């Protein structure tokens, strides 16, 4: 039987102009929270329609309700305050949270369940439940309360675990716990792994962790110990040099790899041929039925048109590879 080669997406999508406007109007108190939620749901439907039209296999809801992947949780949990914006690159800024008290839920668990459930209702294809991992939330916040990073990370791990369990209970088949900061400090990799063990303990789901823009050279192959089913890594951004690092050890039979094949921080549209070449290189390392193809990272920094174009190139490249390699 032919092996399958699946496509997915990492997380965020660009917010359509109608939602950008609604968010601005909500900030100016011109519309209600309910009106904003309606605008978010409409945008989510559009994101799902696009992915279905393109034929993507495992979908995301696009994170229309979120501004930033860390700030979203900080805004909704206790123990954080919001700082003025800090630049992360180019002209991109984020409100870096400040931990000023013990972190905890503000209300009932399941902060992300409602948006996941609304998105899943739009499609028969699986929608990933999207969470940010404890290590990254800690690393991308100022800590003005906890005596050390470890105690903050572990408190956060318990919160993320409860959130993951709530998603699983709601029916999420795939749960992605993003840990882009995990490659920041190789000496803390074990700590991050320990925290992920808390998050994924007894979690009845297909677990994924997206990691990007780091020093993989320093953390591979130790990264394979991260207790998730699938690692989702970026490769296009570094001209696929990551694949040479992955060649160091045979790819484990019990792990999946999702590999980023288009640079989400560049206006340049990749050609189908270069994306195809990247996929074929990845197939030399990971068998097709353990490989997923996606963009390097969330698409929110692209315009809607750019995001569509990049995803279309991916889908065309995957279709050609499937045909030429006898894959489904």
């Amino acid at each position, binding site marked *: 039987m032919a092996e399958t080669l699946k496509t997915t997406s990492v997380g965020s999508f660009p917010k359509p102009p109608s939602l950008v406007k609604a968010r601005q109007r909500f900030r100016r108190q011109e519309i209600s929270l309910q009106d904003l939620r309606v605008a978010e749901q409409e945008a989510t439907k559009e994101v799902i329609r696009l992915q279905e039209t393109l034929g993507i296999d495992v979908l995301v809801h696009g994170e229309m309700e979120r501004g930033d992947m860390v700030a979203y949780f900080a805004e909704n949990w206790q123990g954080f305050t919001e700082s*003025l914006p800090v*630049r992360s690159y180019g*002209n991109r800024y984020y409100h870096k949270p400040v931990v000023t008290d013990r972190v905890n839920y503000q209300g009932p668990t399941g902060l992300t369940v409602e948006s996941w459930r609304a998105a899943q209702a739009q499609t028969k294809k699986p929608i990933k439940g999207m969470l940010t991992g404890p290590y990254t939330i800690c*690393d991308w916040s*100022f800590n*003005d309360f906890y005596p050390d990073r470890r105690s903050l990370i572990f408190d956060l791990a318990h919160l993320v675990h409860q959130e993951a369990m709530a998603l699983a209970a709601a029916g999420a088949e795939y749960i992605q716990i993003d840990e882009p900061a995990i490659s920041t400090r190789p000496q803390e990799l074990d700590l991050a792994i320990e925290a992920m063990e808390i998050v994924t303990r007894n979690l009845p789901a297909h677990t994924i962790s997206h990691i990007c*823009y780091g020093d993989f050279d320093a953390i591979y192959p130790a990264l394979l110990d991260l207790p998730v089913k699938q690692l989702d890594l970026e490769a296009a*951004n570094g001209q696929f040099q990551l694949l040479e690092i992955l060649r160091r050890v045979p790819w484990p039979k019990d792990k999946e790899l999702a590999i980023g094949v288009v640079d989400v921080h560049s206006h340049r549209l990749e050609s189908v041929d270069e994306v195809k070449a990247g996929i074929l290189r990845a197939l030399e390392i990971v068998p097709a039925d353990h490989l997923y193809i996606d963009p390097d990272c969330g698409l929110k920094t692209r315009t809607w048109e750019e995001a569509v174009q990049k995803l279309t190139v991916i889908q065309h490249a995957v279709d050609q590879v499937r045909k030429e390699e006898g894959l489904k």
Partner: protein
Amino acid sequence: MRITTLGSYPKIPADNGPSVRTAIQRFERRSIGLTQLEQTIRDRTHHVIQLAETHRLDVTSDGMIRWNDMFDGVVRDVDNVQSAGLLRFLDNNFYYRHPLVRGRLSFQGGVVRWWLTQAVALSTVPLKAVLPGPFTFLQLSQDDSYHNRQALLDDVVEVLRLEANSLLDTGIQEIQWDEPALAYYPEWNIREVKETLTTLTKNLSVTQSLALYWGSGIHRWIEPLATSGFSRLYLDAVSDTEVVPRLRAEPLPVEVGLGLIDARQVKKESVSELVKQLEPILRVQGESRVWLHPNGGLELLPPDHAEGKVHVLSQVRDAVVTAPRNGGLR
């Protein structure tokens, strides 16, 4: 004791004031033109310099308001290298476009020179240029052309020297070479680094300093690099707690800067604690040979906190000046 900042500063205001972020957004939406964008950048640079004036900094950077990252200006000035994909900048949630070397490097020049000429014209405070050091450039770039580390290093040193030379008549008072990679990564050939940096600094007729930050390996560079042509070493004493004991131990043949103000945490330092830490170093190194500064560019902080850190610098300087020492008030 003198005070300075190290490099970058937030491009947005804490409250009202010129915001480069907003100006770029408006420029991209075509609601303002190039002239207005340029004016905002100048106004923001002026704000950084005014802050230095207000707090009586002895030397300041221009806040590197025009730079996207520490390589940006130099990459624009050098042929056959381009700003490529984003990578994490060491252990920060900040991303730089890594220099991608595509052919033999050659110096074109003009961009950094023009940027600094504009900044000097705005400043009444002595202004320094901040440039990437050759080892950080080498470590954080991608070589698709040389495939020979030594040949690439030699050319990087040469283009950086040409860059530095091109700045000498702009009115800057100092060139600060930033080498966070030497602090951050553990394995370097100390002899090679010393010899290369000596070549880099040789016969450049301007005060030159070396900034080492964001790593625990800073203390091991103090002795070898104290005699490599730099007038002063700026040392991150937050990331490497061995720095302070070393500087307390014996005098160095070079001025020393202490990065005791944490440029990556919002927690405000205690002025009295800082003075206490500085006292023995001032005694050993000599008060006129010691500088205090943040342990990196302040752009990793929100603008209100960045300003607060500059304020702490001046408070500590004032406290040191008035502190009873050696048997009497100064």
